[in-house]
Structure formats: structure tokens, C-alpha cells
């Protein structure tokens, strides 16, 4: 077996393992769907109070916020990788992955794979439910490229997730992920367009991959006009993906080295 095949096989096996464990909690998915329906119902009625055109899609705040929510769910899944790794550390299960040929970096990436994939699938289900139940005006032609953008965004988000895992392994703390998630929920453009914010805080939308990904997804699925040109938004997203993965994987490898030297690699 070639090394590449070995890594892919191990990653898929870990996804299968996580899917099996996830499915063993029988009501988890039902609970998530109900929560999603309640949230969408709330925003469906809030949308009726929003002035037309406030979001760039005339009278369609509901559609605007649904795309924001599903994208944010993918981001959250990626950034929560550190929490999953922390649970594996506490349970002592990370050790088996670390001392396998897959190694620590491969192990962490494979741990992140199922939640991110699941969040993308769940985003699709959410959009379908929004279209079916609430008359969400999705542009069918935009779905295939939107899937590509979502995958690209997931790679960029996963890079940031690896950075928080590196912090967890090096300093035994990953509280930063919670702050980033909270910050981006407000400043990333999930619920409001970033142009509504004062100029001095708008720079936040320029230094992370979430806002350009969200702009592109809204453009593809709803036909909104992106904040910047489509080409520029796409360029930013690709650049973030290409840069973040090697940088963050490198940071993770350094954190593993530090943990090995300190003797704290498998501790939490």
C-alpha cells in the first residue's frame, strides 16, 4: 500500500468510526433538525420586520440569514476540532492515532474530517428544508459552484481549526476558538452585511476566509451582489486555503514536537 493510499484509507476509516459513534446517539440528528427548524421559523418572522433591500436582496432577509447560518455551522464544525481533540486526549484515544503510521498531524486532520463533512451535508439539508417549508428562493444553477466554494471554505476553516489544535497541544488551552466563533458570528456577516459596521471594524472581514466565502455563497445561491468582485472574493478564498493549511499544519507539527519534549503531548 502506498503512503498516500494509507493516509486516505486511515482518514476514511476515522470518518466511518466517527459516523458510527455519531449514529449511536439516536436523537442527536433529530434534535439538530428540530433546532434548525425552530431557528429558521424565528428568522422567517423576524425577516418580515426587516426593511426591504437592507441586505442587498430585496425583501429576502430570511434567505440571506439562512445562507449565513449554514455557512457559520461549517465554520463552527472546523473550529471545534480542538474540542474534539481535547476529548480524545481526556479519553486516551488520541494516543493510538499518534503512534500509528498516520501520525499526529494526520490523526488530527482525520478527526476533523467527519464533523466538517457532516456540517456541509447538514447545510444542504437545511437549505432544502428552507426551500420546501419556507419558500427559500434558491438558484438551482448556483448549487454546483456553491458546493465547490463550500469545500474550499471548509479547507480554509480546517486550517484555522488546526491552529487551535496546535494551541491546545502546546499550551493545553484552546479558548481562542470560542472567541473567534463569537466574533465572526457578529463581524463575519452572518446576520448583517458587513457594510453596516463602522469603517474602523470592517477590516475584520478582510483578514479571514469566512466573509469572502459567505459573500460567494450568497451570490451563487441567492444572486446577491458580493461586497467585492467575484474574482477577488474567489482569489481571497483560494489564497486563504492555500496558505492556511501548510502554515497551520506546520504549527501543529511544532506543537507536537514541543509536547514530546515537555512530555505533555498526551496530557490535558
Amino acid at each position, binding site marked *: 500500500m502506498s503512503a498516500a493510499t*494509507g493516509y486516505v484509507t486511515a482518514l476514511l476509516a476515522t470518518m466511518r468510526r466517527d459516523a458510527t459513534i455519531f449514529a*449511536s446517539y439516536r436523537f442527536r440528528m433529530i434534535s439538530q433538525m428540530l433546532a434548525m427548524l425552530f431557528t429558521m421559523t424565528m428568522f422567517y418572522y423576524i425577516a418580515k420586520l426587516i426593511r426591504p433591500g437592507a441586505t442587498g436582496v430585496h425583501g429576502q432577509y430570511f434567505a440571506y440569514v439562512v445562507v449565513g447560518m449554514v455557512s457559520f455551522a461549517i465554520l463552527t464544525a472546523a473550529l471545534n476540532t480542538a474540542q474534539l481533540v481535547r476529548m480524545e486526549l481526556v479519553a486516551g484515544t488520541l494516543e493510538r492515532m499518534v503512534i*500509528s503510521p498516520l501520525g499526529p498531524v494526520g490523526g488530527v486532520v482525520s478527526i476533523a474530517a467527519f464533523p466538517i463533512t457532516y456540517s456541509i451535508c447538514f447545510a444542504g439539508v437545511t437549505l432544502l428544508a428552507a426551500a420546501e417549508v419556507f419558500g427559500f428562493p434558491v438558484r438551482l444553477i448556483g448549487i454546483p459552484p456553491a458546493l465547490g466554494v463550500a469545500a474550499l471554505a471548509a479547507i480554509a476553516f480546517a486550517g484555522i481549526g488546526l491552529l487551535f489544535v496546535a494551541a491546545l497541544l502546546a499550551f493545553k488551552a484552546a479558548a481562542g476558538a470560542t472567541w473567534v466563533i463569537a466574533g465572526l458570528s457578529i463581524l463575519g456577516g452572518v446576520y448583517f452585511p458587513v457594510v453596516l459596521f463602522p469603517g474602523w471594524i470592517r477590516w475584520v472581514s478582510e483578514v479571514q476566509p469566512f466573509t469572502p466565502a459567505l459573500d460567494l455563497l450568497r451570490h451563487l445561491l441567492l444572486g446577491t451582489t458580493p461586497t467585492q468582485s467575484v474574482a477577488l472574493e474567489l482569489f481571497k478564498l483560494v489564497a486563504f486555503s492555500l496558505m492556511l493549511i501548510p502554515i497551520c499544519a506546520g504549527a501543529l507539527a511544532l506543537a507536537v514536537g514541543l509536547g514530546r519534549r515537555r512530555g505533555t503531548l498526551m496530557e490535558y
Partner: protein
Amino acid sequence: MGLHGTGQSIASTLTARVPLAVAPLGAAEPSGPALSLAPAHEQSLVSIIGVGRHWGRGKDRRAVLRDVDLELAPGSAMYISGRNGAGKTTLLRIVTGILAPDSGAVVVDGIRIFESWREYHRRIGFVAAGDRGLYARLSVRGHLEHAAALAFLPRRDRRGAVDETLVRFGLAELSGRRTDRLSQGQRQRLRLALALLHRPTVLLLDEPRNSLDAEGLEMVAGAVDDVVHRGGAVICCGPVGEPPAGGFDRTAVLEDGTLRFA
């Protein structure tokens, strides 16, 4: 007797004996004089060369391992006993790569860990002390299938390896059962099975008797013998006074950070 060498003899096999810090994962090989491996060293499957390790900082700094040397030839098994806190687990963890030594190096089948994490760990099977490391809601078979993929076993071999391991460790009837519904002894059998599924060349056992009955202990002994007969090497650690499970060529006591061979 497959085991050969003590600190004295190992030192004589090295033309340049230098403290060799294992570099962090992904880092370049440490600078300084290269370690020259003499013939006896090359014949070893596992070489622990001048390994030192301390714990704590400042006033609490305490040396746990001092310049430990150990060589295991193919087809040999070593039992290391020691008091609680003597450094047995530290030594095994250094061999697995989870822990970096302050000085010295470990070579497994001619490979040092920073040369190839993948190839190094293809050769190793490790049973950690305690009873952790299992997913409560995953079945016995699910654990083994995952371990087979982690070990990079070829697809055609995986199913056979899992089935064979289930039978070998008396887990066939429990294959569909979640591990939170197993007894402690059954879980320990599974932990052993996970370490041996890929037929490792080097088996590392840290207090493997945990909750095992007589039948389970026989399985440990069988696993040790199997690795030895395949030309592999085994290092097993246990507390002082506990009889080893399996046929070991030689025993040693880890005391004051050094190995005292019987």
C-alpha cells in the same frame, strides 16, 4: 539468547558515542557528529542508545532515566521491572515516540523516529498502562477495523487480520458489542488485540496484566512468543515482584534511572 549487550558493550560498538537529541517531528536531523553504527548495533532490532530523561523544573527537576542503553536482537524479549515511578513507562513512551528523550536516541529496525514517523510506527505495537484508549460506543470489531486502517494494512489483508485477531483474543463472540458493555478483562484483551492486529515487529507492553484472568494472561504470553518467533522483539514493563507473562530472554530492573540486568 536473542538479547545482547549492556551499556558497556553497546558503548564499545559505537565509534562515536554522542548524546543525540531526538528532533521534534518534522525537524531536520540534529547537527553535530553523526552516530556511527557498528556491526553489532546494525544487527539489533531495537537500540536504545544513551537515553536520558528528566521530569520537573528547577528544584523539582528529577532524572528518571540516566544514559540508558539497551539492544534487542530479532527474536528476543526483555522484561523490565521497577518500583512505581522508576521510569518504566517513560522508557516505553520514548520508544513509541510520544515522548522525546533529553539525550540519546532510539533506533527501530534501522529507523529513527524523525527519519520516518510512518515507517517507524508501522513496526510498533504498544499497549499502554491503565484501561483507557477505547471508544465507549464503538463495537469491538469497529475498533479493530479502525486500527487496521490506522496501521496502513492493505485492503485485502484487513478483514482477515480483524477476523483472526478476534479469534486469537477470544473476542469473536463479542465482536458486535460496544466496549462500554465489556468487562474490564475483556477491554484489556481488546487493547492487546489493537496493538497486535498488524503483527508488529516490536511489541511494547506496559503492565499488560491489568484485569486479565488466567486465559487472558496466556494470550499475552502467546502474543509475546508469537512476536519472538516471527523474529521481532518485545519489551514488557511491570512492577517489582510481578511475574512476567510470557517467555522472556532476560530481565532487568530499572532503578535510579539505570537498567540493572539480571
